[in-house]
């Protein structure tokens, strides 16, 4: 735990599509790497070395800079038992923390329920994106899901400022709970009023925010800016979530063009976000966890790579003890799992670390068991 008195905040970034672990943290001196990736290998000269074996993709310079300051933990070889090479099922597993059977409750939904059991704050968790990801879904948990912070709200399509403000006034009165109207009706009333209240409070976030950091124009960067705005507004939000659209990093083809472009955007956005928090003396309050559903196949398929297993995840923040965690999976052909890097540490160990050592919570009921924790916090 950190010494600051503010409640710890967790930001989770879901980089959907399965980024290629091998070209993200590159084993640039391993002869097998050069063999498996005749076309798509990252030129060893351009790699940003971590040590004499591995280094960052050159487009990740902003993250490398944070790494050099000791603020980035790289979780190498992260994965889950019996790897499934389906994006959807794999993402379900990451989101529900349940690899054995199909579960419907998200691990962060359960986290929110434990953080705010009496539902005192309608903004304990905020998601940026359309629809609620399963990771934040749990019965009785209300999460604001924001497509666009500047235009978020109830009845946003109404024409005219005056008309809309009258409409919202009527809405609030229509949703006022009526005693004796039944449990379902009262639940709808509460949900409607929570949404209205959440939208009202969230609307204040961009107003109170000013920053010298200029985020990129891409949606991901803008959502990170929104996350900074919400956090800095001091609304008591403890869990913030966003990600790339499904399949964004799914580089079966054209990897040489797409992959560097994506990492450029993501690295800049993350580094801008950190800088923004730092400028506001808030970088000690937030830890960021960034993951993808799995790694990609060792052997390239021409211009791209197919689905694999063991992957890489990242944890950032002032509270993080930077460095390498887990082991870099072996590239020896006989150590591969059907042509993929073997995973060597269960993703729930990273979740447990974040929950226990950062959020100060009991992870067992959320993850359904105990998992070996890392020392990155």
């Amino acid at each position, binding site marked *: 735990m950190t010494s600051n008195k503010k409640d710890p905040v967790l930001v989770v970034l879901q980089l959907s599509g399965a980024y290629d672990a091998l070209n993200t943290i590159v084993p640039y001196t391993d002869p097998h790497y050069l063999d498996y990736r005749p076309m798509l290998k990252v030129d060893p000269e351009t790699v940003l070395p971590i040590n004499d074996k591995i280094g960052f993709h050159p487009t990740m310079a902003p993250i490398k800079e944070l790494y050099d300051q000791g603020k980035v933990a790289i979780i190498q070889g992260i994965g889950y038992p019996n790897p499934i090479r*389906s994006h959807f099922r794999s993402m379900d597993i990451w989101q529900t923390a349940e690899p054995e059977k*199909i579960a419907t409750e998200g691990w962060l939904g359960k986290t929110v329920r434990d953080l705010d059991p009496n539902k005192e704050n309608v903004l304990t968790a905020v*998601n940026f994106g359309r629809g609620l990801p399963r990771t934040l879904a749990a019965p009785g948990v209300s999460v604001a899901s924001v497509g666009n912070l500047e235009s978020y709200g*109830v009845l946003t399509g109404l024409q005219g400022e005056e008309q809309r403000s009258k*409409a919202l006034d*009527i809405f609030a009165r229509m949703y006022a709970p009526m005693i004796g109207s039944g449990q379902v009706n009262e639940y*709808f009333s509460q949900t409607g009023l929570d*949404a209205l209240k959440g939208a009202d409070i969230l609307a204040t976030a961009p107003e109170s925010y000013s920053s010298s950091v200029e985020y990129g124009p891409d949606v991901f960067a803008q959502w990170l800016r929104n996350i900074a705005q919400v956090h800095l507004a001091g609304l008591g939000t403890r869990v913030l979530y966003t990600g790339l659209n499904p399949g964004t990093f799914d580089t079966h083809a054209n990897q040489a063009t797409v992959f560097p472009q994506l990492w450029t955007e993501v690295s800049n956005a993350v580094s801008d976000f950190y800088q923004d928090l730092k400028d506001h003396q808030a970088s000690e309050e937030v830890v960021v966890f960034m993951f993808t559903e799995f790694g990609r196949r060792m052997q390239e398929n021409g211009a791209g790579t197919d689905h694999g297993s063991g992957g890489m995840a990242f944890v950032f923040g002032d509270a993080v003890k930077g460095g390498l965690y887990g082991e870099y999976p072996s590239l020896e052909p006989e150590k591969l799992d059907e042509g993929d890097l073997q995973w060597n540490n269960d993703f729930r160990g990273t979740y447990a670390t974040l929950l226990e050592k950062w959020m100060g919570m009991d992870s067992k009921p959320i993850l359904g068991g105990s998992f070996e924790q890392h020392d990155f916090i």
Partner: protein
Amino acid sequence: MADKDVALMAHLMRRAGFGAPFEELEARAAKGYETTVEELLHPEDRPDGLEMDVLERYFTEWKGFSRGVPAYQAWRMINSKRPLEEKMLLFWQGIMPTSNSKLQNLGTQHAAVEMFRRCGLGSFRDLLIEISKDPAMVFFLDNCLSHKSAINENYGRELLELFSLGVGMDGKFNYTEGDVKECSRAFTGWTIANSIPGQPYGRYEAKFVYSSGDHDEGEKTFLGETGNFNGEDIIDIIAKQPATARFISRHLYNFFASDDVQIPSWMDTPPESPETIKLLEDEYFRSGYNIRSMLRVLFNSEGFKNARFAKVKSPAETVAGVMRLVGDWTDPRPGFGFVFDEMKYMGQELLNPPSVEGWHTGQEWIDGGTLVERINFSADQVGNINHPGIRNIIERLASEGPAISSEDLVDGCLRMLGHYEIPDDTRRMLVADAQDGGELRTDAEEFAPRVGQLLQMIVATKEYLYA
């Protein structure tokens, strides 16, 4: 024609279909309630009204259906002239679902869509046989991994627990763990050809095959009966159980009439309307397990007719219902994907339910995120006074005279939206708001937008969340 007849017709059409604009409701009410029930129950008597040759030119992925299956389903909900057929599809998909997140093979899932359209109103026994042979289901519940040397119980268990008997009834269990094993043995050899996952070999449609060499021919004892049962024999035994009659009756009541408790509670929680359930159970046996006959009994029962607004609309019902009301997307144009996406944002992704239990229904459709999506989507659509359905509403209201009182305007809008009912307090607020805008001249330019605004407020009410 009496208002109460149109109101009842609005109720029938919301439940047995996806709602209808007021002109259609009036025309159907004039024909009569029972006549409409019979029409709905016999989709095969009329064309669905879809011009596939035209549609396929716009939506090229609808040719052959390796992609675009959920969007096509959404299109049919909005446009098919056989709405109960589409409603039955949604009903069965909620009970015997397969999920794209595991299959990643919409072409194979499309086979089940077609099967539910073909068999959804027929014999429940036949439907159980069909679903047991459905290649998507065989893969989804791992029956292809069940061998005579080593059974996989996944399908055998869910067939009993979720598709037919239910865990228990009246506080007692309906089957034992032993029955699950014997059931699973009987379904060994019911497998598929062509592996389903797209990776790494590409997407091929899977086909059901019966592998007699992998079928366990031995003697089995299932629900007290003993024999060398194969899958069909198991389904014959299942179909004649009172628990199956109860389970399917309760599902029909829950889906078409009134929200029941969630399914895992059915063992210990008795049905809300025991009389209606009894009618349905009796008809199940009388008709030889016929779903169409059960629905005829249900739609004509007092239990159904008195259950107006006793159900929370699902996202699919919400989106398709609003589209039918406003009359948009009757002709193809680019961008239809957003309609399917809206259902997803509201918590119901067609062909991809969160688990083998399908979707949790009723109040569980609504949370902070989905409520805002639902209200904003509905309000944006009904507030668009260029939509043909909204224009019709405005013209009908204007046809009543050069001026309209704010009371008549509010009541008129409620009627046109399907005879919705709102509490007096809410009605007073809307009337007062309508009055604030000054005298309502139906020939004035601002009449149309004022109607639009009022419709927006009505679809934002709690009451509009219900069907």
